[in-house]
């Protein structure tokens, strides 16, 4: 009986490891392939057959792509919205979370109710579009920041975390004459670092990856288009992706590398910032996500 089980166990283990290696491989392959092509000579790439490693290593694709005005500006706008949007978003969500965690606050139920309801419904695409237009946010940088400033989910993750902090910290600060603003900045925020990191990651990923708000609200302002939006345009217009105007070039200095190489190189540029960060925040976001699921 016992030997039988260990034998079955062993077969299962082999299957398990093979399966997991397979999962890791199919997850990583597309990324490694893109990376390989981005470092491979553009002319050579057209021959195909490149998988995990560049055949003719070169940095030319990167040098070239970083001369395209549209993409460089897209990179700049994307970075800007990610930095500003994340900073303001985290601060605002944390402030709301703190306020609704204060048991004594008279409007606590009202404020938390307002935010809870937003989890279950939204006005929908068109009413939101009309609102943005009425507020004069069309083709305005702040359209990237303001409408999505606070996510209800983030507020409740933060609040769940604040609730786990010892109450007497706040009370003793109050006795020392600190007001709520001071308590929030001096005591609560520093203690919330792990969960702030989680929320910051979520917001930053959302900001960096979003293209639809550009598509809807800012596509007629070439100074405001983001990297992901430009990327989307290039992907959607495969046929015309070799035209110079797409990259902000004049016809005279048309791209010297193939559309495919351009695409793969931008893919790396657009992916790298996040991929470089998330593994370090893993233990925080796993915790934050669990906290949100239990309390949210």
């Amino acid at each position, binding site marked *: 009986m016992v030997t039988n089980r260990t034998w079955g166990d062993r077969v299962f283990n082999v299957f398990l490891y093979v399966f997991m290696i397979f999962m890791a491989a199919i*997850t990583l392959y597309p990324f490694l392939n893109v990376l390989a092509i981005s470092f491979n000579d553009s002319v050579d790439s057209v021959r195909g057959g490149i998988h995990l490693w560049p055949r003719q290593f070169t940095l030319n694709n990167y040098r070239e792509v970083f001369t395209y005005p549209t993409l460089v500006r897209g990179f700049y706008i994307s970075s800007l919205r990610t930095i500003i949007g994340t900073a303001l978003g985290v601060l605002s969500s944390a402030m709301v979370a703190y306020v609704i965690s204060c048991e004594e606050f008279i409007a606590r139920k009202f404020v938390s109710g307002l935010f809870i309801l937003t989890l279950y*419904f939204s006005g*929908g*695409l068109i009413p*939101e579009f009309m609102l943005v237009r009425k507020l004069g946010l069309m083709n305005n940088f702040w359209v990237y920041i303001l409408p999505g400033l606070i996510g209800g989910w983030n507020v409740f993750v933060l609040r769940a975390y604040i609730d786990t902090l010892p109450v007497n910290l706040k009370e003793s600060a109050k006795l020392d004459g600190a007001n709520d603003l001071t308590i929030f900045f001096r005591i609560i925020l520093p203690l919330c670092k792990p969960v702030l990191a989680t929320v910051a990651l979520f917001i930053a990923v959302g900001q960096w990856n979003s293209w639809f708000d550009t598509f809807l609200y800012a596509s007629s302002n070439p100074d405001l288009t983001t990297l992901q939006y430009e990327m989307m345009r290039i992907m959607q217009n495969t046929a015309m992706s070799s035209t110079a105007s797409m990259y902000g070039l004049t016809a005279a200095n048309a791209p010297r590398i193939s559309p495919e190489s351009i695409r793969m190189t931008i893919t790396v540029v*657009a992916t790298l910032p996040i991929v470089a960060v998330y593994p370090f925040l893993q233990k925080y976001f796993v915790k934050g*996500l669990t906290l949100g699921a239990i309390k949210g």
Partner: protein
Amino acid sequence: MRKLYNQRYLILMSLPFVIWVILFKYVPIWGWTMAFQEYKPHRTFFEQHWVGLAHFRTLFQDPMFYEVMRNTLAMSFLSLLCGYTLPIIFALLLNELRDGLFKRFVQTVSYLPHFVSWVIVAGMFSRLLGVGGAVNEVLMSLGIVDKPVLFFAKGEYFWALVTSIDVWKEIGWNSIIFLAAIMAVDEDLYDAAAVDGAGRFRRMWHVTLPGISTVIAIMLIMSIGNLINIGFEKQFLLGNNLVKEYSEVIDLYVLNYGIKIGRYSYGTAIGIFKSVISIILLFTANRVIQRFNVEGRVL
């Protein structure tokens, strides 16, 4: 009054965000009135022509609407079927890995695609599944097909394609919650089961799964509530004119018929219809789950 004064900082801190949430989340709800008008942007609210349910009638008479509903429901059911069950299985299997380092590696890798935008994922897959792409190369070298499959040109493939890519992207991420729940299952129960002679599979079935049933129920209710809210990002980015009959979903319909050609009232009516459906689904799921006497509750 004294209380108000004492809480002035809290009021000060919440006021800007109360204004924000009312402006950006509740004012659009007021916009729902557009669905019952022949809305023209230059008119004020009192000058609008009221048309009652006319837009809803137009909607239900449009054959396109039934097509996009079919596509939406088909893709959301597929994603519920796969995008919800596969992460549970993945979490169960991950939990069986004894090697901590290898487990951590697989986990970290499995989260990676979640952080990448759909724009990029769509770009990568159109390459991988293209004529000279790796998938066709493998299929051909294995002799499964003798000429490249045009994955993105066949409407019949589209639903499966979107679902599979979605699973690829989110399986690791969606398993996080289940894995955390599995970790919380009492270790003694496993030992007791082992003493009773239960093997690995029986322990998974009789200890782990019941142990995480609450989380499974909660996640199920939330997924059902969101059935109709599958968005349009994947369909917009992965679809093309060849597969339009299968890729057009409800939100794309709103985008194309509401915003692009300026039929705002009509588009809003579709939005309302969608919200009503999702609230009904949420409540129904909640009730059904409670019938089964599981503790999970969302509302």
